């Protein structure tokens, strides 16, 4: 058996005294009682000693309690202060009336009728007064006093350490008490003294304290993974403001001005406005009659004022269209991950703000088949191997598609939306080639990945979620499933 020096020293002492409390043992070992308990527990783990623990409770009067122990409880002092009866108004003049009157009534010592306090004669000392005289009596009286804050409880843990027969046998064989060293010093290392040292051994059973490395939030790690995939696929990243004009957020995307998404109950509107850009007339005409395309447009009216109202962006597509306007020549392949806003009541599955991932591919000769191919590849790289497509509807794409991925335990899960920008969207800006577009609510993927039940957990972070979520998990686990 491989005992530490301290264990051996304690065993040695126990060999003589057989049994003792930590303080006595500590005195003989020239150490502290706390250390003795530590060493004893180690010995107990090896079956060489037994550690008995007993909690002793003692009570001590508070300052107020001590006063009452001398003079009597307030109700006792008061009941002594008058004969059989007394008007309430007089009794109230007693300095202890604040506590005393209530207690006298509660204990049934007096009755109060028509402003007169009258003794009932049943005022023998109760268990509390008995306990006040002698705390060792314990029982109900002590509890009552404690409740009134007249005494406080002290708990003391008493250890008794006893040598077991196994310990005795081992000690009898003789113990090597050569000094052990805990920490190696520079001096010992450089001088070569380490050669003669006995280094204390550590126990593997004693678990290390937990330390937490600084980490990127697991949700951000997922966003970074998606960014990485898109960068690897040749996309350039774009970034832009949270505040957008309705023109770029809606009108430029051919969303009619009376569309429900443009009402104040769905979108966060701001009092600020920004002017419509140069060339807005072509967008206006597109809404009114389809401009020079085969489109009929939405008809009705188009208000410039409505287009100039600012909103918190409801999608990052407002950035994609502005990028296209600035870069109308092919090829364009860009993506964006950013916060978007919906005027939703917040609950476990709805937030007023969340991240959207979206991107576009504009080039000569790209087709609907390429859109599906891109989606399959992207979701495949995210670990969703089974992808299927259903017709979808989005105001600014035609054709539109809803991709679904297969998740074990959940079945087919809708995973964002995609389509080809309507000609009405790109034509006003001289963008002559098809624009494949897709978007994805990333928080949904994060819920699947992190196994969360409540979307709010992503943003109102419990530090332990970050601390306990490992940086790396085997791909199969983290990709495509929970």
């Amino acid at each position, binding site marked *: 058996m491989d005992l530490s020096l301290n264990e051996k020293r304690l065993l040695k002492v126990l060999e003589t005294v057989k049994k003792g409390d930590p303080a006595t043992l500590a005195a003989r070992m020239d150490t502290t009682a706390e250390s003795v308990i530590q060493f004893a527990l180690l010995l107990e783990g090896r079956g060489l000693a037994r550690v008995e623990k007993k909690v002793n409770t003692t009570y001590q009067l508070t300052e107020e309690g001590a006063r009452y122990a001398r003079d009597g409880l307030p109700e006792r002092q008061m009941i002594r202060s008058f004969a059989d009866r007394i008007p309430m108004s007089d009794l109230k003049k007693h300095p202890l009336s604040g506590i005393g009157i209530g207690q006298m009534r509660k204990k049934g010592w007096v009755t109060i009728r028509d402003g007169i306090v009258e003794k009932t004669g049943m005022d023998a000392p109760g268990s509390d007064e008995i306990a006040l005289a002698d705390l060792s009596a314990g029982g109900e009286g002590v509890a009552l006093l404690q409740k009134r804050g007249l005494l406080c409880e002290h708990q003391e843990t008493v250890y008794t350490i006893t040598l077991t027969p196994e310990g005795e046998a081992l000690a009898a064989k003789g113990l090597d008490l050569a000094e052990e060293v805990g920490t190696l010093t520079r001096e010992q290392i450089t001088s070569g003294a380490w050669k003669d040292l006995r280094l204390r051994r550590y126990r593997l059973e004693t678990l290390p304290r937990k330390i937490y*490395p*600084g*980490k*990127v*939030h697991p*949700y*951000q790690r997922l966003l970074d993974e998606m960014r990485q995939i*898109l*960068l690897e696929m*040749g996309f*350039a*990243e774009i*970034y832009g*403001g*949270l*505040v957008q*004009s309705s023109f*770029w957020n809606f009108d430029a995307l051919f969303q009619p001005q*009376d569309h*429900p998404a443009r009402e104040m*109950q769905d979108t966060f*509107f*701001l*009092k600020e406005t920004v002017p419509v850009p140069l060339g807005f007339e072509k967008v206006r005409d597109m809404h009114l009659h389809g401009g020079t395309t*085969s*489109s009929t*447009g939405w*008809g*009705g009216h188009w208000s410039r004022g409505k287009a100039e109202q600012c909103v918190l962006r409801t999608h990052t597509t407002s950035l994609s269209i502005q990028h296209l306007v600035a870069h109308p020549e092919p*090829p364009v*392949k860009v993506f964006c991950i950013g*916060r978007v*806003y919906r005027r939703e*009541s*917040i609950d476990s599955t709805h937030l*007023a*703000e969340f991240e959207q991932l979206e991107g576009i*591919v504009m080039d000569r000769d*790209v*087709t*609907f*088949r*390429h859109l*599906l*191919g891109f989606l399959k*590849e992207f979701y495949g790289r995210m670990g969703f191997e089974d992808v*299927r497509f*259903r*017709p979808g*509807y989005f105001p600014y794409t*035609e*054709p*539109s*598609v809803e991709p679904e991925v297969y998740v074990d335990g959940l079945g087919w899960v809708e995973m964002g939306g995609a389509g080809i920008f*309507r000609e009405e969207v790109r034509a006003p800006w001289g963008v002559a080639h098809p624009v494949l577009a897709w978007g994805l609510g990333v928080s949904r993927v994060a819920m699947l990945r992190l196994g969360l039940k409540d979307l709010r957990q992503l943003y*109102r*972070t*419990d530090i332990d979620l*970050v*601390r306990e979520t490992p940086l790396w998990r085997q791909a199969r686990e983290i990709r495509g499933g929970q």
Partner: protein
Amino acid sequence: MAVITLHYRYLERLVGCDRATILERLPMIGSDIERVEEDHVDVEFFPSRPDLFSVEGVARAMRGFLGIETGLPEYRVTPSGISFSVDPGLASIRPYLGTAVIRGIALDEESILSLMGLQEALHWALGRGRSKVAIGIHDLDRVTPPFRYVAAERTRAFVPLDYDREMTMEEILEEHPKGRAYAAIVRDFPKFPLIVDACNQVLSFPPIINGELTRVTADSRNLLLDTTGTDERAVMTAVNIICTALADAGGRIESVLVSGSHVPSLAPSTRLVSARECSALLGVDLTPADLSLLLQRMRFAAEPAGDDGVRVTVPCYRADIMHDWDIFEDAAIAYGYENFRAALPPTFTIGRAHPAMVIASTVRSLGTGLGYQEVIPFTLTSERVMYQKMQRPDAPETLCVLHPISEENTIVRTAILPLLIEMLQFNRHRELPQRLFAVGDVVEGLATFQKSAFVSLHPAADFSEAYAVADALCRELSIPYTTQESGDPAFIQGRRGSLVANGRTVGTFGEIHPAVLNAFELEHPVAAVEIDLTAVPGYPSGQGTP
């Protein structure tokens, strides 16, 4: 979203096919099956296809999609001899009227439910909550033509649906449940829209409520439709969708004379589209003949016209066909989304991260290197958290949302530090030390840019720790800085500093004021730093401004 209830028996009878086949193929025409019940299924259809908001409309589309009956459905309209006048006084109130007579209908429970569901879904999708279009359907035999659509006095009284006493239109807006729900659409007009018959009996107070007089029951055989609104195209679309559904339910459609023209005509429109353009869009080689066949399954009439053209006849109920590509999408649906061979786009480009995001990533690796945990707070917050609890004055450049949904979400953050301190409050019961950082967007005025903040909470947190972190951040991000005494009331006086770079204050650091700790219910000192990332050399300027 419009969720439509389809009763199997009625659906199977109209489609001529079993429910299993219908349910299997229904999603592939563009719908989400919400709930499958024993006798019915609830299906969500897209707002672009109001013609699918009835069992009759779905059955018509599915007959084509399943190949049971393809091509254009024909609808005959004969004149009813009835006329309907429109009062010019309505021009500024609710000018447009659509109408039709439907005869010989035999409604059963399921077709009445389908009709009511259609009416409700059209009010939502086309009608924008009845403001743009409102629909009334009446028992024609209870009233006497001709009919008049007039602007009437607000005190005109009649018995509204579901009531047994006369009420004035003003009373209806105050007391009737429908009146209260839709009062906002008409309340401010001096006169109210009203539909009356030759004997001055009231049929309807559009867009609010019909009269009890013309209530439709299973015994009604002949119906009068009124559709009123503010957008002529939407009003006519609603008429077309309801008339074609009722014709499919067995009714004969008759036209009504309105301002000299016969309404409705239910006439289809035509478009000449290019098979080559369609092929290029979808990535599938389609000849005009191929495209014609696909479109016939979507209930268009379609025939090749020349070596590239296809002449497409679009039924009157297809309100969504605005552009040739809308027709091409239908061709794609008929082709079957599951039949496209997916292929990667051939476009070659080089990936490039955005500099602002690269800087954010750099801050993240710096934060974790310093032993801090990243958190991702909300960007919406309140003046209370952003300023009052921080003892900071409200910043004039704060962006307020116009109709906040709760007191916690009234503004967009101008700083991240208050949200980090709030995050410490959320984590009061967690083990110390707690070191948190965040990097993300803030908005000042209308401009979005990035900031980053760091907080450290533990019994020994102090100014020196904050200064050391601020210094490390600036050194690692190559921000040449000097310091100045700060006046920021969120920090303890004498234990706070400003970071100044190129003559501009770009950050603050120090020991958080105990009153702020009290406000956030924190019990240990907090060392904190916040830095404006536009100070980082190479941060792209001006990209976050609309």
